[in-house]
């Protein structure tokens, strides 16, 4: 793998691919497959990652003629990956192919403890990540695709509003408003779940 090659080399490879050398695309595929997989694993269910990663690279290949080199290839590819994730959730929320996860009693007890423990460090140490993940998945399942993506990028991954806007192709104002609303929705969901 040529992970150490400079980013400037990417533009040359892109030029080769656009000029007709299809095989040169394999260099980009090998170099950035891990980056794309790491990005996708945060946003998608485990069993959909491989297939969606393929779609990301196919989409990138088709869009290569539009790559102007204004940003790095990695950043450009990240944008395609994030938008592919967004499209994935839009499609799946429309058809509701994925079953909505339900909150078990164990999850509710965990949530109760998480909320009542306030800033207790011991809770952080002892808490089971699996349960936290289940609760998070449960709450995210109940948000729209747009709310989900904004929440994941801003609230959970710590991207700035501008970075999120660039990744999703939205205006900063839109990201700001949606981020605020989706955060409120998440808190409401978790609070209501605790009250049940």
């Amino acid at each position, binding site marked *: 793998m040529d992970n150490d090659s400079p980013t400037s080399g990417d533009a040359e490879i892109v030029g080769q691919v656009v000029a*007709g050398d299809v095989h040169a695309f394999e260099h980009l595929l090998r170099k950035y497959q891990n980056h794309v997989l790491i990005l996708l694993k945060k946003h998608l269910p485990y069993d959909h990652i491989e297939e969606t990663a393929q779609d990301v690279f196919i989409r990138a290949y088709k869009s290569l003629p*539009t790559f102007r080199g204004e940003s790095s290839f990695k950043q450009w590819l990240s944008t395609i990956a994030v938008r592919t994730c967004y499209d994935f959730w839009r499609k799946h929320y429309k058809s509701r192919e994925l079953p909505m996860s339900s909150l078990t009693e164990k999850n509710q007890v965990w949530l109760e403890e998480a909320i009542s423990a306030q800033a207790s460090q011991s809770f952080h140490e002892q808490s089971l990540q699996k349960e936290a993940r289940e609760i998070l998945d449960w709450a995210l399942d109940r948000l729209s695709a747009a709310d989900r993506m904004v929440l994941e990028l801003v609230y959970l991954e710590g991207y700035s509003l501008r970075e999120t806007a660039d990744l999703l192709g939205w205006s900063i104002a839109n990201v700001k408003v949606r981020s605020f609303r989706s955060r409120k929705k998440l808190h409401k969901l978790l609070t209501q779940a605790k009250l049940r």
Partner: protein
Amino acid sequence: MNPPKIEPEVLQAILRKAYQEKENVEVGDQWQQEVMRRVRELGTLQPTPTFPEMLEQLVWRLAPVTCLLIFGLTVLFAVSDFTSGYEVFQLFMNGTEELTFALFAGL
């Protein structure tokens, strides 16, 4: 009953940690081969067309519709008796003028 107050920072920290710690995904050579197979199927890329090229494409796309329209109108004029229709119109117009003059003259 008012909902209990959640400390957003605490909850965010817990959820963020859970979010980050998802299991890793690894793909093998077969996955890469599958992507490259799909890429080869797509073939070589076409460069993004410039504005005159896009205009040309649009013109060629509209050309069959334009031809069909011209052909259709030609057939329509050939089938419907255009000349006699015009003559009837002229007759009507002339007739109206005469009638108007006759009325004006009080005849």
